[in-house]
């Protein structure tokens, strides 16, 4: 009997791994080995020659070059711009997506029509198309510049902060094009809320405003984290992002090459990990706060 149970367990393990085998194999070949190779490249001088690639270990030379060369400086500046911008963009996108999701979830006529419009950004989200939208001037609110708003920002903040903040205002509408999937996520979460909860709250005398803060928002909170992570990754890997352009452009640049590119790719990942950690901590602190109340 015991033998049979054991056998069943081994069989299950075998079956499970055979289902996973394609992915595991792919992960080893196309992801894991490349990750370690990339780490090694970042610590090496990589030269492409007729016979192939010549990799010479040089320690932290590439990383030192990032902090000492003009190219490295450009990269660092675009990364810090990106980091500052994301601190503003993530809350804007999240709040906007929640508002739209709540509105779209109301009992309204032509809901299908409105949803069709608001999910357009899910499908029209490619770099080239978005930059066409920007080109066309449909991306800015003219009043912001006319009213001297940008000047005000430039005067108030020091240069390092003013540029990204001014960017955010001039791109306010483009930012909204990055909220398609997040709206979807929040609508899915809203539909999970039992309608009886609202009815019960109404009988107890809660108004719409109270129901919104006491029922809707708490039940969205787990989705907020999902949405925030998605937003950060999505913005970080968006093809028009300047920081990742540097990584690609340096691959074939004469002075830098694969080694330097790998090094800045890893630095970029470290910054990204820090940003994710910051948002995670903010989120954790926020939900703890709620718990105490």
């Amino acid at each position, binding site marked *: 009997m015991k033998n049979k149970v054991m056998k069943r367990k081994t069989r299950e393990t075998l079956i499970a791994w055979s289902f996973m085998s394609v*992915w595991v194999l792919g992960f080893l070949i196309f992801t894991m080995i490349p990750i370690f190779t990339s780490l090694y490249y970042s610590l090496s001088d990589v030269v492409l020659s007729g016979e192939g690639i010549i990799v010479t270990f040089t320690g932290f030379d590439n990383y030192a070059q990032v902090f000492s060369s003009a190219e490295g400086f450009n990269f660092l500046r675009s990364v810090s711009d990106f980091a500052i911008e994301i601190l503003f963009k993530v809350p804007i996108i999240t709040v906007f997506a929640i508002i739209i999701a709540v509105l779209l979830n109301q009992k309204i006529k032509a809901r299908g029509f409105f949803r069709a419009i608001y999910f357009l950004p899910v499908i029209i989200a490619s770099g080239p198309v978005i930059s066409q939208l920007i080109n066309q001037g449909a991306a800015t609110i003219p009043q912001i510049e006319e009213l001297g708003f940008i000047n005000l920002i430039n005067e108030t903040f020091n240069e390092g902060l003013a540029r990204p903040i001014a960017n955010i205002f001039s791109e306010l509408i483009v930012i*909204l094009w990055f909220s398609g999937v997040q709206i979807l996520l929040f609508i899915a979460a809203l539909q999970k809320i039992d309608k009886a909860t609202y009815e019960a709250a109404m009988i107890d005398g809660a108004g719409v405003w109270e129901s919104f803060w006491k029922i809707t928002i708490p039940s969205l909170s787990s989705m907020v984290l999902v949405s925030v992570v998605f937003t950060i990754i999505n913005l970080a890997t968006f093809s028009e992002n300047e920081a990742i352009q540097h990584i690609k452009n340096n691959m074939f640049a004469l002075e830098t090459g694969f080694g330097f590119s790998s090094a800045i790719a890893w630095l970029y990942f470290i910054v990204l990990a820090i940003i994710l950690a910051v948002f995670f901590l903010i989120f954790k602190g926020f939900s703890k706060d709620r718990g105490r109340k």
Partner: protein
Amino acid sequence: MKKINKMKIRHFFMGKSFNDGFIGKLSIYLLLIIIGFVYIYPLLKMFAYSLKDLEDLVNPTVQWIPTKVYLGNYKISFIVLNYGMTLIFSLLVTLVPAVLQTITTSLIGYALAKFKVRGRTIIFAIILLTYLLPVQVYMIPRYVLFDQLGILETAWAIILPALFGQGLSSAIFILIFYQFFRMQPKALDESAEIDGANAFQTFIKIGVPLAGPAYLTAFLFSFVWYWNETYVSSLFIGSDLYTLQLKLFNFTSQFNMAQGISEQALNEAIRYSATILIILPVLLVYVVMQKWFVEGIDRTGITG
């Protein structure tokens, strides 16, 4: 009598609660229309522009509606983009990876949901990590690998990672399938087993048919994301084989290369007609499958 009327009027405007009264409803509609305009406006403007001929373009009185429907811009874009061939190639590096990625991620999602084997948590951790790790970190060695395999600048460079579940946002799809398969009642699998089906038969006969919405959602998002992807594909597919998106990205140089076809200089109208041509395929898919984008997300239980 008068009092009841007053109440009625009050209820009509204010509703029993905010969101079913007239004012509440009106403000919801107004907000939705105004904000929705942000998305519709550039598309409409692009479309209107793309139909303008040179006269209309310079004529300041023609703002929105062109004096006549002029398709010349589309003709030029069609040639510059080499639309027929490029569309076929774009579909090849969009549809094929989307299908393959959906199948592979469903396999591992199924295994993670149904079999509680050792190492499961590690696999989960790895999957999440691959989502958080940007592709930039490992794309250079991948580039070298593809170069050595001789598949650089071919469709294989996009298809192969997708086949092995290492494509675009694979992690998200694995999680979708995991959530979905986990919700299927275990009793069904057990009864299939009693009937003598092996694990693969159970998967094909019971798992897959019941997971229709998950497959559709995964496929749709895969399709759209692959269609819109330009960063990695520009590196792996390169300059010989262009996708539609890449041609749009390099539209100016593409236009200059194809010169002689039109005596016209590149203008906004041509550019916008090209943009419209490029979003057209996904737009069509969207119109047909619209409700699945929402219902799919809902039914796959990402929220759970």
